[in-house]
């Protein structure tokens, strides 16, 4: 009975928890005492100014950065190293675009270590990769060199690779930065279908309107956790000022739409 419950991806059950998470780079503290928890089947956006620790938080959750204090647990199990169930989609800037690989090669990287390393990729792998590309509308670009694509197209290819990794939690670092409107819409609809499949999506973004529109909950972060909750509770003038400082431009239409105080 208990095991049955544990196996079913149920909306509303906390599965990914950070407890008092702090990350330091040498003397400098990048993230302090962040406690948040995510449930399956929700989309959470991560907002904060540059240097607020958004990437650091995502990387710490993904097991890419060691926590100096606190823990990250997935379904009760601590994450200290990268875990196949947690899919991390880096910022596009971390990639060498002149690299001689095709779009299909990039997507196949998701399966690089699934089977025997001595065998080349089989038809099954290739079909799965093409199907993932199909989901992001990029199938016809499979043979192209990755650097020849536009920013939005490159982001779609990374999403296809993430889909092929087939994780439970998706962490995306600025998936909406520098991409065109059709790609933004495609990313949103992809998040929706992942959420319906019981996955957890956490993405960092600078776009307040996008965050309000496409997430169930919002994290406001500036080295410390400022606020965490549904958009209408979180997006208040006081919270935004605490996050972005005095010069924050408050999107008034956004606050009205979400019923926040003006």
């Amino acid at each position, binding site marked *: 009975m208990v095991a049955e419950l544990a196996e079913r991806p149920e909306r509303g059950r906390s599965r990914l928890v950070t407890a008092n998470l702090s990350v330091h780079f040498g003397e400098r503290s990048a993230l302090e005492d962040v406690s948040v928890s995510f449930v399956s089947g929700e989309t959470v956006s991560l907002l904060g100014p540059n240097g607020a620790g958004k990437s650091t938080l995502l990387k710490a959750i993904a097991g890419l950065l060691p926590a100096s204090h606190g823990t990250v647990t997935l379904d009760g199990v601590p994450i200290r190293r990268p875990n196949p169930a947690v899919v991390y989609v880096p910022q596009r800037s*971390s990639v*060498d675009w002149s690299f001689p690989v095709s779009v299909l090669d990039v997507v196949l990287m998701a399966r690089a270590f699934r089977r025997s390393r001595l065998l080349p990729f089989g038809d099954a792998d290739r079909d799965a990769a093409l199907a993932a590309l199909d989901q992001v509308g990029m199938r016809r670009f499979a043979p192209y060199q990755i650097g020849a694509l536009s920013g939005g197209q490159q982001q779609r290819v990374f999403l296809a690779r993430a889909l092929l990794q087939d994780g439970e939690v998706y962490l995306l670092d600025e998936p909406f930065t520098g991409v065109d409107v059709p790609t933004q819409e495609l990313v949103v609809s992809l998040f929706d279908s992942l959420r319906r499949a019981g996955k957890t999506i956490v993405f960092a973004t600078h776009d307040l309107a996008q965050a309000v529109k496409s997430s169930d909950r919002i994290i406001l972060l500036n080295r410390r956790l400022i606020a965490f909750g549904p958009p209408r509770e979180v997006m208040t003038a006081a919270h935004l000022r605490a996050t972005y400082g005095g010069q924050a431009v408050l999107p008034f239409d956004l606050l009205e739409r979400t019923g926040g105080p003006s």
Partner: protein
Amino acid sequence: MNEWLLDPLRHTFMQHAFLAIVLVGVICGVTGTFVTLRGLAFMGDALAHAIFPGIVIAYLLGGNFLIGALIAAIVVSLGIGLISQSSRLSGDTAIGVLFAGGFALGIALISAQRTYVKDLTSFLLGSILGVTRGDLYLSAAVGALVLGTLAYFRRELTIIAFDRTFAQSLGLNLWAFDLLFLVLLSLAIVVSLQTVGNILVLAMLVTPAATARLLTDRLRVMVALSALIGAGSGVIGLYLSYHLGIASGASVVLVATALFLLVFLLAPQSGLITVAVARRLHFPHPERDAFPEPEAESAEADRTGTLGHQPSPATRRQ
């Protein structure tokens, strides 16, 4: 012509030299692919110089020069890693400091020997005509080890070269693979020292790979072409060296460089001259010069090869 080709092969030392240069061309060509993709050319040069003291110490102690070189390479790699941890100094500064320091240590050690000039010259410029059967076996064995390891870890090394953060998120230990690659690179350099010498080994690592990169967008093809160009430059260079009486290492590297310049100017997709000519021959055409529109049918692109290989409407009409 036949005589020109066959005459050098009558000598055993030339047969050995040809085999040695083909081995070096293939080993450096394949290893060099990753060197150029990772932007490690300066690191390769530094390793070549920094392993010098290791070889000299091994020689003075009567030990195996491969082991001496490897220990020196690992010490230097770790040292570079350690110094670049300091946020005030960049990686290439760290490389520069240790590269010159290591080389000076090697020269200091060897200058105490009576055969100083001869030893130093053969280390710097190689002595391909002195390659023995035993040297060949050793080179082949080390080469097989290097190529085998590169093949075994090809996916790890490719993903790390392409996107380090993603590689890390797959659970790859970047530090361990970086060190592994530097060890393989050091082995490739050590195997090449006798053939092309310390100063020119960089050319064997970088030039064929760079030429191959201009010719293809596919990693697998690039590795094969790089090995082929490396071995080919070696063979052609040795013939020229034999018939023109010029130094073999220099001759091999000059052939590789000439091939690079030729491809740089004339490569079908990217050559400076070919592209300029193509621009004069055709008006820009959306189907040749740009991507298919999102609405366009995609079946064709799925079947055809890499970018730019689709027949342009102009050629189809002819």
